């Protein structure tokens, strides 16, 4: 109700003084120039008298002296504090009129202003397409700094609203389709008006379909385009209704906010990556090989542990590397091997297909990752982030997605706490903590870091020794060569020991790190987040590094000592086991960490506090799982299937546990920055590490001699080389291909060159960002200066105006109070 009364007041004020805001700007500008002329001339008494009577008339007709904060001046006109000089001091009418028509106060105020603003924007877009305009076309104005400003300053150009609309429509016509759509989308008018603008932009003559003499073929083309667009829209709406887990995500975000939502969105993204990998690998590798099974002496024994170990029954199946043949698959026709009698000749070079499919899958994944990383980086990176935190917190922190009542209440509490903290921080005087305090804080942090790094190194070494022990143990078991069912079962079970050890370390140690971090003090909660993530990441990277050394450096070098015909299949099985164990331990963690903890804290400790969903830790678990999946692509083409099933289970399990057992996080979580950070982590240590391992395997390690698509070659990479040489032999015109292959692909110099160019481009961009930061600072200073100029000019105008009047200030105030009392009658 209060809102309406004030607006009514404003309207009344304007109607009283006969000025209808931006539409009547001619009169206002006239009065302004009139004022300036009056000041610069020598004043005669009569002129003074005329002006005075004019002013007195104006002032008695005023409702209130200040512009829209009606209550600030009522009753206390003596307070002429210069804290907010443009608002609280009582100005004269003429000054007020000038103030109200300042460009900064008319932008966005009315439809006319919006139309003219967008007219200027479309004008700039049209101009950009043409060549540079000549100097003559720039209008001369008294204030050179506003040449090319968004709002027209030339008084003669102020048209009525319909003219502005006409000209905007004209401009819209001249833009391309995409630009027009984008411009229309950004205009802040109602849908009704936008529709009208669009229709008038399209209805103008000049479009081919409005003419009658359209040749029939282009009319047909036109119908086809319309039909296509119609079907495209219906397909889009169908797709959006089909979006995976839309309602589930909505419920999660409604209760827990954007931070927890980002974990589930990340999970969904990983799922799509894996589905893509699955499709590619199935189509190009699994299906052709499954249709033409090789002749292997398969002796499947079902031990019962197959699902866990991935060995035994599955060892010689299409799941692993060893199943794939190293020759060209041909279509057997009518049982006869005589190819000349075949009608349809189909051959599929398996080794080449294997090599290129894995390479292409990695390459496309890399491109998609880099693209999504750069897109999310562009959204979340801001050049200057130091100022304006409190304002951002007030206006941008309310999450409109949250709908549940208790979560809304929680969000309120969170925001209040954060605001209180921020105000306290801003108010806190810079207490120079004594040297002793700083030293003690530093030493505590150093101690915490030493503990964490030490425990990570210790665990990595422990895994190294344990893997060596298991390796020796396996050698002993193989050498003992007893074929009893028990010993075989034990052998299979012993393979599970290493994954269990690694997964339990992954589960327990991050909790230990969090406990250690309690004793430390950090400046900001986001710094604490980053430190925790970094320590967890360091642990996982070192564990994976040790494991990769174990597989590629130990198992691959001497496969015969552990009785392996096919080390790649063994490594594939290991990776399958690791993936599965990771899933089992995550489920156990969810069960114990969330469900049982909630029961314990509610029944035993009698507290209402539920456990908090640890977003960072869960996301790092996802990244770890995905790294293993990528590592295993080369050895187990069906691993994406396992990963997809695992992710599906994980989604429902985590969501159920979240809804029942957890509460929303209390600490602030900058969702968009964190999402960017996690995608970067997915790209850099995770994907890059997996790609480097796979590349190393393909380039240097000798594949097994008796299984897989690369048997007999020195390295897997030679498959491609052989094919190129074969091509060159068959077709002498392609010898340049071998040359290109030898010098570009095999030679590392080319790679170094590419990496060097990449680094130079990054350096260049960082320098550009630095320069832009400096420009922003300079421009902000300029804005402040302009504000000061404005204040100065307005006060000067006012003082000059007051000096001319012979009335004392007290009488002026009396008159304005008279006006005020009259004005109060208008307030509802």
């Amino acid at each position, binding site marked *: 109700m209060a809102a309406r009364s004030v607006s009514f007041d404003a309207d009344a004020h304007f109607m009283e003084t006969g000025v209808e805001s931006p539409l009547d700007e001619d009169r206002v500008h006239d009065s302004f120039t009139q004022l300036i002329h009056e000041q610069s001339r020598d004043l005669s008494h009569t002129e003074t008298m005329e002006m005075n009577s004019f002013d007195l008339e104006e002032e008695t007709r005023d409702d209130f002296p200040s512009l829209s904060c009606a209550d600030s001046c009522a009753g206390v006109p003596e307070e002429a504090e210069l804290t907010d000089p443009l608002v609280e001091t009582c100005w004269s009418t003429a000054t007020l009129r000038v103030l109200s028509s300042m460009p900064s106060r008319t932008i966005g105020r009315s439809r006319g202003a919006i139309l003219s603003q967008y007219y200027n924007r479309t004008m700039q877009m049209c101009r950009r397409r043409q060549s540079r305009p000549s100097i003559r076309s720039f209008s001369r104005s008294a204030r050179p700094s506003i040449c090319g400003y968004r709002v027209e300053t030339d008084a003669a150009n102020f048209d009525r609203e319909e003219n502005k609309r006409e000209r905007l429509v004209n401009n819209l016509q001249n833009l391309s389709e995409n630009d027009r759509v984008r411009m229309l989308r950004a205009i802040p008018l109602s849908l009704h008006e936008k529709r009208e603008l669009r229709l008038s932009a399209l209805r103008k003559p000049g479009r081919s379909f409005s003419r009658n003499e359209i040749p029939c073929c282009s009319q047909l083309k036109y119908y086809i385009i319309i039909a296509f667009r119609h079907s495209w829209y219906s397909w889009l709406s169908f797709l959006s209704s089909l979006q995976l887990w839309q309602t589930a995500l*909505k419920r999660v975000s409604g209760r827990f906010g954007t931070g927890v939502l980002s974990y589930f969105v990340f999970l969904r993204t990983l799922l799509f990556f894996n589905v893509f990998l699955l499709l590619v690998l199935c189509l190009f590798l699994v299906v052709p090989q499954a249709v033409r099974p090789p002749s292997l002496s398969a002796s499947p024994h079902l031990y019962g542990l197959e699902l866990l170990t991935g060995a035994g029954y599955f060892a010689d199946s299409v799941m692993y590397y060893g199943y794939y043949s190293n020759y060209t698959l041909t279509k057997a026709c009518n049982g006869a091997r005589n190819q000349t009698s075949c009608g349809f000749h189909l051959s599929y070079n398996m080794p080449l297909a294997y090599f290129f499919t894995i390479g292409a899958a990695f390459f496309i994944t890399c491109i998609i990752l880099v693209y999504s990383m750069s897109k999310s980086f562009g959204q979340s990176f*801001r050049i200057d982030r130091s100022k304006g935190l409190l304002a*951002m917190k007030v206006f941008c922190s309310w999450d409109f997605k949250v709908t549940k009542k208790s979560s809304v209440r929680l969000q309120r509490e969170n925001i209040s706490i954060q*605001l209180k903290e921020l105000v306290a921080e801003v108010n806190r005087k810079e207490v120079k903590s004594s040297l002793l305090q700083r030293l003690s804080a530093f030493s505590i942090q150093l101690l915490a870091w030493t503990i964490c790094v030490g425990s990570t190194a210790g665990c990595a070494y422990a895994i190294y020794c344990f893997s060596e022990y298991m390796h020796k143990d396996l050698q002993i078991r193989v050498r003992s060569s007893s074929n009893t069912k028990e010993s075989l079962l034990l052998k299979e079970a012993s393979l599970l020991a290493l994954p269990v050890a690694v997964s339990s370390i992954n589960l327990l140690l991050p909790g230990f790190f969090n406990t250690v971090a309690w004793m430390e003090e950090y400046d900001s909660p986001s710094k604490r987040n980053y430190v925790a993530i970094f320590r967890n990441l360091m642990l996982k990277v070192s564990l994976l590094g040790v494991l990769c050394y174990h597989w590629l450096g130990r198992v691959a070098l001497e496969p015969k000592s552990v009785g392996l015909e096919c080390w790649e299949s063994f490594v594939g099985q290991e990776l399958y086991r690791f993936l599965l164990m990771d899933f089992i331990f995550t489920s156990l963690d969810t069960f114990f960490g969330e469900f049982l903890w909630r029961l314990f804290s509610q029944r035993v400790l009698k507290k209402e506090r539920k456990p908090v969903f640890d977003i960072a830790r869960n996301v790092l678990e996802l990244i770890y799982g995905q790294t293993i999946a990528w590592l295993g692509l080369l050895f187990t083409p069906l691993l994406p299937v396992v990963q997809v099933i695992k992710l599906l289970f994980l989604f429902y399990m985590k969501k159920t546990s979240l809804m029942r057992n957890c509460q929303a996080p209390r600490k602030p979580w900058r969702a968009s920055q964190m999402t960017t950070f996690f995608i970067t982590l997915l790209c850099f240590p995770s994907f890059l590490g997996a790609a480097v391992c796979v590349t190393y395997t393909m380039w240097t390690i000798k594949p097994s001699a008796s299984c897989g698509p690369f048997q007999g070659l020195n390295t897997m990479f030679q498959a491609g080389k052989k094919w190129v040489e074969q091509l060159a032999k068959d077709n002498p015109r392609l010898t340049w291909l071998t040359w290109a292959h030898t010098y570009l692909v095999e030679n590392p110099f080319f790679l170094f060159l590419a990496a060097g160019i990449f680094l130079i481009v990054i350096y260049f961009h960082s320098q550009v960002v630095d320069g832009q930061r400096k420009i922003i600072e300079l421009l902000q200073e300029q804005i402040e200066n302009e504000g000061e100029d404005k204040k100065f000019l307005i006060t000067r105008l006012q003082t000059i105006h007051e000096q001319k009047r012979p009335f004392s200030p007290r009488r002026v105030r009396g008159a304005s109070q008279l006006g005020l009392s009259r004005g109060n009658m208008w307030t509802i």
Partner: protein
Amino acid sequence: MGNKQTIFTAQQLDAYQVSQEKLLFHRYRDLAPQLVPLDYTNQPDVRLPYELIGSMPELKDNPFRQRIAEVFSEDGEGNMTLDDFLDMFSVLSEMAPRDLKAYYAFKIYDFNNDDFICKSDLEKTLNKLTRNELTEDEVRMVCEKVMDEADLDNDGRLSLEDFQHMIVRAPDFLSTFHIRI
């Protein structure tokens, strides 16, 4: 004639710029099935009162729901036509450009509709955000600091420019000023 009809429908879909236009229409209709007809081709003048809009589950507990409805409704009181409804959810969707969202957010936080966010608007915003969790002193301090930080041309209130400048520096704005339907 048939030619023009298809153009209009395709353009109608285009202009709505919302990929979930059908879903939104059905949500609108579900609020008052007896008032809203199924056939919108002759554009009937149907206006749902604010009480119905404010009872939607997405808006029911939002402290700014009244302002949102007022800003997007034609009559300024919260009674919305289908166009207003679609407008509202398209601006609050993921696909709306940042400037458009900033413009409407500015209008939502401008309680007295004078195209500026003055101190009283700020105080009202804070009260809606925190619902009396902060003391008077704290509210006053927060308002002062916010004015200090965000008011660039020092006129004592935030104009649309100041607001947009601040929004540009807040990467989270796009994800928080978003309602999922």
